């Protein structure tokens, strides 16, 4: 769907801004908000470019830089830390050969940190795009990443 089409699903009112930015980001192949998308949104809502930029840069979930197809958000809150999430992070960094905040060279994965994901009963936990993964361990990490690699091969 084109940027215009996505934006026009919403009423042209400022209170729809966050929902519009989510929709635009989710439909972009790089999981990010392009300059064009933000400018078009500003025009549609009658806002300045600066105010849309201000909102887009304020919220952690939005990115202005292209990211991988799959965003890994790993929880670093006190409970996941207690359950040794640092080991899991190192393992993901080594499997994907990237550091936190970076995107893998095949453009499939971006590794980000997240505040509490509310999955503390089965810590440590993370999300890959919309899906939650809990009780993470060395084996499950390998499987999860492999699953997404296969998924990418299929389409």
């Amino acid at each position, binding site marked *: 769907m084109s940027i215009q089409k996505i934006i026009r699903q919403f009423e042209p009112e*400022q209170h729809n801004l*966050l929902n519009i930015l989510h929709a635009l980001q989710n439909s972009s192949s790089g999981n990010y908000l392009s300059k064009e998308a933000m400018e078009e949104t500003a025009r549609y809502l009658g806002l300045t470019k600066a105010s849309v930029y*201000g*909102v887009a840069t304020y919220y952690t979930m939005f990115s202005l830089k292209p990211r991988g197809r799959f965003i890994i958000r790993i929880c670093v809150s006190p409970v996941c830390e207690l359950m040794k999430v640092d080991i899991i992070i190192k393992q993901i960094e080594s499997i994907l050969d990237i550091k936190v905040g970076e995107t893998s060279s095949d453009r499939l994965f971006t590794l980000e940190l*997240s505040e509490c994901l509310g999955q*503390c*009963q089965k810590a440590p936990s993370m*999300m890959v795009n919309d899906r939650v993964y809990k009780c993470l361990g060395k084996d499950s990490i390998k499987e999860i990443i492999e699953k997404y690699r296969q998924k990418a091969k299929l389409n």
Partner: protein
Amino acid sequence: MIKEERILLRNAGKINPMSIEDYIGAGGYRGLEKALGMEPVEVIDELLEAGLRGRGGAGFSTGMKQRFTSESCLRCPQRYVVVNADEGEPGTYKDRVIMEQDPHLYLEGTIIAAHAIRASKGYIYIRGEYQESIDKTRKAVNEAYKKGFLGKNILGSGFDFDIGIKLGAGSYLCGEELTMLESLEGKRGTPRIKPPFPAEKGVFNMPTLVNNVETLANATRILEKGREWYRETGTDTSPGTKIFTISGQVNKPGYYELPLGVSLRQLIELAGGMRGNMQFKAALLGGAAGTFVDASMLDEEMSYDNLRDKGATLGSGAVIVFSREDSITNTLVNCLRFFKHESCGKCIPCRAGTAHLEISARKLKSTANDKQKLLASMIRESELMAATSLCPLGQSPVLPLKSAARYFKDELYGILTE
């Protein structure tokens, strides 16, 4: 051993949360039906008499909040209900459980609240990362429209109410009610000066009631079963149940719905006791914006007032349990790092203070000398921030910091105790 009392969560795991028929079959929407047969002011009286207190953390009287909102600015053309579903306090997932297991439960409470304050519009502001909660709430709203529980002339009562869903985007601070309203209007999540409170000038400057998901779930039950029934559970000043989310070093971490007033020892027992041969050392109550307690607090009644009187907090109902092998210093550093990340930067004491506290906290972990002086200056800073910041975020670091210092001074000073 105590048992769970599933007053709110009686349907959890028993009905299909995606089916409104299941919900109705389990007695759903009867509270709304009753409420619509009452005058709005009678609904507020019912909540007031039931003694319901806000479950978002502050524990303020829900009935009073609704009364203020219903009585303010009578000439205003519009009144709003906003559901605070932006759960993000570390260690907390009670609202997620309600939204995933029984979304109609809080939606029903929302419609009841709207009738009580005569609001014809409302929004549910859900945390952006909570995809399953978002999907299930969307489905619940669509089905409620189809069945006539939302929209025009609800159940033939003449009452109209429309609701929209707004998504957060990864800002903890937006769980603070005035900041949530800014975000809901499509702006950066920075807090507003209060007063005016949302009851007077809320979203789009109109009188607005902001209630938490768990609070609204309670409202549904109170209307369904009545205030006397409701008061049979919990304590005099904190009636009803609380969904506690216990995590960390226990055998069965998870959510447990218990009467307010239960003790920490009872909760840990219910959660299967300490893992392995671990010994209890501490619990962090209420998340990052909460307080550490040690074993001397194990038998205290966990109610809003008693914990406050003892210098602790119930907050969101999060309970993180630590064993003797765990480092309180590490968790304190983590909490302070969190506040730095989430500070919006509007108030200088919070913007600079949260950053400085994190740097200082990391020194606590190092081999730096004179940690006593360091800790004392951190506490002074956090007190200054609490006194000079607009919103609860700048007022929070003092809570874990002071309580950690109160119970675990030796560890923070780097003196090995064992």
